[in-house]
């Protein structure tokens, strides 16, 4: 009987240590930026308000993997107060849809330079009440201690998410918006319980 108990205990420890879970590290230099590059006016909006996790089991990253990241759109700053307000109220409607999020899983991982990895992910992008299946690629690298860093650049089309391009004069917004993310994560130590 003692052996069974021991086995049971070992199995449970084994299960705990199997998964790797990374959480976005708040207060680090996280950077989420959108860039609208229209012919007569380029501008960008920046926030550090990103949260979420990345999870996988084993060593190949794709087993039982899942990920979820969300960005608080209310905190996007384009540098001009009125433009921020127009963005929030007229185009993103942040009172109804405060976050943009990406929920999915890791589909492929290939080693890149200096111990980092090119990670392909597939999942649901949610912006402005619209959900789209998309694929995103990013670079996952190991930093000091148990920290990680993710860098990714991709584009979205505003029309895919029912965001009207203002036809009003003097507002210049590109149909294709470039997104740049660079943020840090830390590994959650499972045996020490929840972080």
């Amino acid at each position: 009987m003692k052996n069974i108990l021991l086995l049971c205990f070992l199995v449970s420890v084994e299960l705990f240590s199997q998964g790797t879970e990374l959480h976005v590290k708040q207060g680090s230099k996280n950077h989420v930026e959108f860039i609208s590059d229209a012919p007569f006016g380029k501008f960008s909006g920046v926030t550090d308000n990103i949260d979420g996790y990345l999870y996988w089991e084993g060593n190949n990253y794709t087993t039982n993997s899942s990920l979820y990241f969300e960005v608080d759109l209310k905190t996007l700053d384009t540098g001009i107060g009125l433009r921020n307000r127009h963005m929030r109220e007229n185009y993103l409607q942040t009172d109804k849809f405060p976050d943009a999020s990406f929920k999915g899983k890791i589909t492929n991982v290939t080693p890149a330079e200096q111990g980092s990895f090119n990670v392909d992910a597939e999942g649901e992008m949610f912006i402005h009440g619209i959900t789209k299946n998309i694929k995103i690629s990013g670079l996952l690298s190991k930093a000091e201690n148990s920290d990680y860093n993710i860098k990714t650049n991709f584009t979205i089309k505003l029309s895919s998410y029912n965001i009207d391009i203002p036809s009003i004069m003097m507002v210049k917004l590109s149909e294709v918006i470039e997104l740049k993310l660079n943020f840090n994560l830390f590994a959650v130590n499972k045996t020490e319980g929840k972080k």
Partner: protein
Amino acid sequence: MKSHSIIALMLLLFITLSMETNAQISWKKQETVDNLPLQLFHSPQSINLPTVETLQQGDFEFEISHRFLPSIKDGSKDLYGFDGPVNMRIALGYAVTDDLVLTLGRSNVDDNLDLRGKYRLLQFKETFLPLLIGVQFGIAKNTQTLKPVASPGRTYQYFGQIIFNTMINKKLGIGVVPSFLYNSNIYRSDVQNSFTLGMNAQYYFTNMFSVLAEFNPTVNGYLNRFNSAAFGIELETGGHFFKIILTNNAKLNPSQFLSGADKDFGTGEWRLGFNITRLLKF
């Protein structure tokens, strides 16, 4: 002994399983806090009365406004006022902080130069109706007077305003602006003061188009003939507010506007005017 072991085993299994499901993903969504300042009216000013809205720190706002003196009653003879003469104001505002805007303005009436500061004081987000309270203080100097004034100090005027703004259903903005003006008429031998109770309302049909109206009755003190009233439309674009209005008060700078109107809107003596503001960032 044996039964104890089985219970212990089951307990351990149970704990293991329940912890396992929890341990799968430990990340939890944080409740997002809305730290945004309350914003009601879109533009920092109604027609002549201020709203509590400010600019973001470091933003500039340039204003150019006209009031055409012939009334629309005079018809096509003066092209409904466009033939002039015209009162005008140019001004530049700067947001020292997110809550404080300083504005330097100049009107061609008595070459009135005014410096005013508007401060966003209080916000109540969770009340039945949202409420914003702001204050505005200003000093004006009439740098070229048409007639001599009693003493050099009389070319200066001072004003203060408390601004209460609310908004119903994100569509109908309402403002109450009790105002005080010191030295309402610089040409009088003794100093005149005016207390007015400004009121304004603005209905936003869309994000870019609204109609607005203003009434500024003098409740105590000096009144230059008639209480002021104005109404018009506002168009809002990326960085501009365009207002096209009809008013019985052709004065633009606060120290001159608050003293009252010279025409009677009751007899249809409305004048055309416009305000254009442009947001600037360097």
